[in-house]
């Protein structure tokens, strides 16, 4: 009889229960995620567009909310310390483009943040942090301290170190590379400029001679040239030339 009783009970235990999409911790992390974004967005010097791009990238990569909060709270530090040729948000986007997702992506971000003189970064947390004001967060203090990137930047987004193309092509300016101007073009422009300058100089010389002639012909009588048609006394006296 007891066997008969055991069968329905075993069936009852074996039946699948409706799966909960989110555990309580995950749900609590989720509801506090926008708070972290809002707190960081309030911080001076954090570009809203870059922050939005970062969160969208992390969302698309399926990063869990608790870990997203950890990444977001380091954003002010990363944006201050980042090297202009290898920006933090660009780095995260590139990592996702390479196929990194979820925890693998978080691990790579963690390594990157460690290079900002933050050796104790730990992004793989289980419980979400409640961030209502980033100024109360310990990492805001780090940000104010003025962290700079300590590791050398290896990545070159355009394929090589700065100045490489100029060196290879024997150009003097970056503009020559970017705008496709050759050295010959620059020489031609300089030649035309020099020609125009010489022309101006010659004109100025001729103008000077004419002026001198005018001065020689000037009236030295000492009389004024006012409304009285030159009949005034004139107080200057005028310096008479010896020959006259």
């Amino acid at each position: 009889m007891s066997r008969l009783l055991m069968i329905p009970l075993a069936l009852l235990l074996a039946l699948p229960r409706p799966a909960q999409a989110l555990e309580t911790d995950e749900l609590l992390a989720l509801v506090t995620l926008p708070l972290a974004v809002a707190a960081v967005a309030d911080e001076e010097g954090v570009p809203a567009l870059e922050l939005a791009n970062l969160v969208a990238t992390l969302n698309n990569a399926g990063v869990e909310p608790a870990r997203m909060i950890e990444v977001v709270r380091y954003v002010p530090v990363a944006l201050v310390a980042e090297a202009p040729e290898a920006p933090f948000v660009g780095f995260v986007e590139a990592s996702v483009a390479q196929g990194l997702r979820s925890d693998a992506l978080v691990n790579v971000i963690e390594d990157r943040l460690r290079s900002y003189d933050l050796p104790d970064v730990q992004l793989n947390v289980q419980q979400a942090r409640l961030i209502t004001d980033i100024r109360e967060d310990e990492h805001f203090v780090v940000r104010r301290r003025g962290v700079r990137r300590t590791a050398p930047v290896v990545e070159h987004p355009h394929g090589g170190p700065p100045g490489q193309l100029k060196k290879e092509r024997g150009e003097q300016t970056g503009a020559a590379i970017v705008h496709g101007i050759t050295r010959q073009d620059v020489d031609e422009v300089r030649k035309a400029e020099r020609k125009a300058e010489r022309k101006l100089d010659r004109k100025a010389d001729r103008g000077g001679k004419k002026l001198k002639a005018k001065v020689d012909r000037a009236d030295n009588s000492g009389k004024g040239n006012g409304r009285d048609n030159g009949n005034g006394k004139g107080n200057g006296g005028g310096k008479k030339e010896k020959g006259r």
Partner: protein
Amino acid sequence: MKKLLLTALLLTTAACNRTAAPSVAQQGQPAAVAQAEALAPEQLGELGGQIRKDPARAQQLLAQHGLTEESFEQAVRKVAEDPAASKKYADAFKKAGV
């Protein structure tokens, strides 16, 4: 003993009915997503604050707004992608008593 058997059978039947419930919810999932998208950041923030305050009532609170956990997650992640919307959410969240 018959009573015991009957009780066990009743429990089994009840459990079977319970497993049928998610399939109904899954059928209505697109509607739940649409409902979540219709909620303003302030409404989502208030709901988030209430969930934070009483996580045990999360399912009930979500159901009251016609949401599933999945649709709610999508909506909150979308809010987080917009710093301005996140500020509205955060204000409503704090007002909800956290």
